[in-house]
């Protein structure tokens, strides 16, 4: 009801400000259904046959006839997914399914039209001029009918093209009443026009004051242009623009720093997840599990299998995959411990080799059972996309959730180790195996459980990694060396050290990257670690007390 009222007001405002409702610019409310149906259908049919030149005019007519209903059509056309059936002339959005076959969907009803034969459909061509036309049209529709976020996006896209007709549109929208952020953006657009068109110094200075510190790219571009081509004769305006530009650059640099920090923490969270299981097994049993990476891989493949088993509920698949992966990798870990590692007690180097053999077998096993190719793991809706804090900083949901998840796993492990009886035994064995045994702790059982726990955590890490990287047989291998580095850096058998080690390695890596490139950053971090080990052979947080040698 409220919505209707709003659109009504809008319509009124439009009629008043744009009496001519000049061609191409107007967004009129949908005409009466009776007359529109046939007329629109005729326009759509003409669209399939039109030349690129004629299309623009047709699009304007469609916009006038359909209003917001045309948004889907325009967006599809902009993405280059708009096709029509050669015989029936029906328009459809075409997407490829995983097998590469084109699947049609009706533009207006959203109804699935099934797989289309390749020869039977034809694409509707777009060129750059049409694309910008479409973008404008979508912005107009959004501004009038869209949600708050869509309106914001619409104003942002208009900042690129401050034509008089767009400005009239903005004015109309502002008069119709808008939320705070949209109003602010409209004021910004008006300031930009003022700076461009006005001849009065004070007005221009006021405009620059509004623009100062704004992060939207067109603002910066306009100021830059003003200073670049030397066309600006007014010294005061120049100075003010210079200042405004400097402030914008400062803010961009700051948010760039924040973004890098986030990327670093995100990489760190992945490293922590991958390494934390290793830290447990290494800390308690003193053995290096070279198959740890493959435990991660098993977790990722478990995610894949879970998604295959419940195709209808992808949204919940990760919630199922986490415990499933813990069980799969955990039991694999227990099997490895019982089958191999137990026989190599007290021979850490041999354990390293034997577990490496296990890792080869697991890798090849996955290659044989699934395929040597990467598997397609779907990202659920709630994890895809990103949250835009401002125009230069946006945070992707998957990385953000994985960061939270890593912290959660860490906290959970701390609780297990500090508060449960298993944790007590694990700590006892890691501090003094012989003494623990004398006190009646069944060290063999504790070993198996520890190994299972460490491997299970690796499996859980695999679920998280499946959302970030390719799921393939080599998934584990690419993380194993980095995880070792984290454990070595943080100090073996110390979870807090692993956390600190993982995050600092991640952040350092990401901050080196812009200067050196990703590969060189990786190499530099490795070299620094090799040097670091010289100084602190036991890591950042060495074990203290009698347990330490």
């Amino acid at each position, binding site marked *: 009801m409220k919505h209707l009222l709003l659109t009504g007001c809008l319509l009124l405002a439009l009629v008043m400000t744009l009496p001519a409702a000049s061609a191409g610019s107007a967004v009129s409310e949908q005409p009466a259904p009776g007359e529109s149906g046939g007329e629109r259908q005729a326009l759509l049919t003409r669209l399939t046959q039109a030349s690129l030149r004629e299309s623009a005019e047709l699009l304007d007519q469609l916009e006038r006839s359909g209003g917001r209903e045309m948004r889907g059509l325009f967006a599809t056309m902009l993405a280059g997914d708009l096709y029509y059936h050669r015989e029936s002339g029906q328009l459809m959005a075409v997407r490829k399914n995983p097998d590469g076959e084109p699947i049609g969907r009706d533009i207006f009803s959203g109804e699935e039209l099934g797989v289309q034969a390749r020869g039977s459909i034809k694409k509707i061509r777009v060129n750059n001029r049409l694309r910008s036309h479409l973008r404008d049209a979508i912005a107009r529709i959004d501004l009038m009918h869209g949600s708050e976020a869509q309106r914001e996006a619409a104003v942002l896209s208009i900042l690129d093209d401050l034509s008089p007709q767009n400005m009239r549109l903005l004015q109309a929208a502002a008069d119709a009443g808008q939320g705070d952020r949209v109003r602010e953006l409209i004021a910004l657009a008006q300031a930009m026009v003022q700076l461009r068109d006005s001849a009065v110094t004070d007005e221009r200075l006021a405009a620059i004051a509004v623009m100062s510190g704004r992060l939207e790219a067109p603002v910066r571009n306009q100021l830059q242009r003003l200073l670049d081509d030397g066309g600006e004769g007014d010294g005061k305006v120049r100075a003010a623009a210079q200042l405004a530009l400097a402030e914008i650059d400062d803010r961009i640099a700051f948010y760039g720093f924040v973004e890098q920090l986030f990327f670093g923490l995100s990489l760190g969270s992945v490293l922590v997840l991958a390494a934390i299981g290793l830290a447990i097994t290494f800390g308690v049993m003193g053995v290096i599990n070279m198959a740890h990476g493959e435990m991660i891989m098993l977790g990722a493949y478990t995610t894949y299998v879970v998604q295959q088993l419940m195709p209808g509920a992808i949204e919940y698949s990760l919630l199922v995959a986490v415990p499933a992966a813990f069980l799969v990798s955990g039991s694999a870990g227990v099997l490895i411990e019982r089958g191999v590692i137990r026989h190599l007690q007290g021979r850490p*180097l*041999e354990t390293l080799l034997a577990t490496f*053999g296990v890792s080869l*077998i697991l890798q090849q096993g996955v290659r044989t059972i699934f395929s040597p190719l990467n598997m397609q793991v779907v990202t659920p809706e709630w994890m895809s996309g990103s949250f835009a804090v401002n125009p230069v900083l946006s945070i992707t949901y998957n990385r953000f959730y994985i960061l939270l998840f890593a912290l959660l796993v860490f906290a959970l492990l701390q609780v297990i180790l500090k508060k449960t009886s298993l944790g007590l035994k694990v700590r006892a064995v890691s501090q003094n195996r012989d003494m623990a045994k004398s006190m009646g702790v069944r060290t063999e059982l504790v070993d198996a459980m520890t190994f299972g726990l460490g491997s299970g955590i690796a499996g859980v890490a695999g679920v998280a990694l499946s959302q970030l990287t390719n799921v393939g047989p080599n998934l584990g291998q690419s993380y194993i*060396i980095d995880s070792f580095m984290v454990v*070595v850096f943080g100090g073996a058998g110390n979870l807090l050290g692993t956390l600190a080690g993982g995050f600092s390695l991640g952040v350092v890596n990401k901050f080196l990257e812009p200067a050196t490139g990703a590969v060189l950053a990786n190499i530099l971090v490795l070299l620094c670690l*090799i040097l670091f080990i010289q100084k602190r052979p036991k890591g950042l947080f060495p074990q203290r007390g009698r347990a330490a040698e």
Partner: protein
Amino acid sequence: MTFAENTRSLFAGVAGALAQLHQPGRGSSLLVVILFGVTLLMSAANLMLPQDSVFYVSTYSITLMGKYLCFAMLAMAVDIVWGYCGILSLGHGAFFALGGYGMGMYLMRQIGDRGVYGNPELPDFMVFLNWQELPWYWYGMEHFWFAMAMALLVPGLLAFVFGWLAFRSRVTGVFLSIMTQALTYALMLAFFRNEMGFGGNNGLTDFKDILGFDLQADGTRVALLLITAALLALAFLASRAIVQSRFGRVVVAVRDAEARARFLGYRTERYKVWLFVYSALVAAVAGMLYVPQVGIINPGEFSPLNSIEIVVWVAVGGRGTLYGAIAGALLVNYAKTRFTAAMPDGWLFALGALFVAVTVLLPKGLAGLLQRSGTKGAEKPRENDTGKVPAGVAHAGEAGA
């Protein structure tokens, strides 16, 4: 024991090895004879017999044999540090590959203007990347002696610096293994970069000739095989002399009880560093011989998997015995050639199973099996694997063979 004495005893070992060439010992004479017998026979069969003879050995087999012998030398290098000093290096492939790159750079410069782009100054990949002039580290690589010196110097220096840093701060056990693995991994990442000037992903290849001899000619191939066999024998004798010398006995003591050896007054880290450098040099020589025979060197040689595979050759043959390492390398690589041809997917299963089986069931490798069946109740007890036996009874490995 002073620094100078250390080095002197190392040199004495090498000199002793040269002397032994004239008076071979019991165990090694057999190996050297077999080595030369087989390679000479193969060479003669390749060069002198007609192609349709039943005894004709194809040039492919000659090259394959040469490759195996290079691997054998590499395995020996790993065995020297792992079997005798307890340093499990998972990064020896790095020294091998660096030696190989040294030889590869020389061979690359020999191509001259016969490359695809016909540029007399720049190798093909540099022309392709639009480089205008040769990077400084390629200078002088067209001279054989200089290239060979660099191919030894660079890995030797790397081993020295790495060993000096690691052993001085007493990084041992699995930590050291992981560090060596990180080293080779870092080098692999670096060599994959085009900007490094070593051909990036593709590495160095398309070699034409070495010292003026055509690399494709049968005669050159046979000569390379013979040189490889000779150098392997030399390295074997030198290593044997080293492990039997006073220096070698201290090294074994370090393996079995490092703290005790240190308390007795030995600067154990110096022994370890020099042994590590020697081992790296042997690996580099193996790499230098490997490249002209297989005709390519690329960053894949640095991959951690390659380095760890070397360790399994040694483990299969029997660590702590030089001939065991050689035999292990030959056996596993022959099996690999056969296996990958017959069922390519099965090889990694087999290799993985080999890792597990050897470490769990056969900790001393095939050599241990031989010793158990051959000399039951032998006069000298052997050290056990946990290193709990006092240093005094440990001794050079192949004496019992």
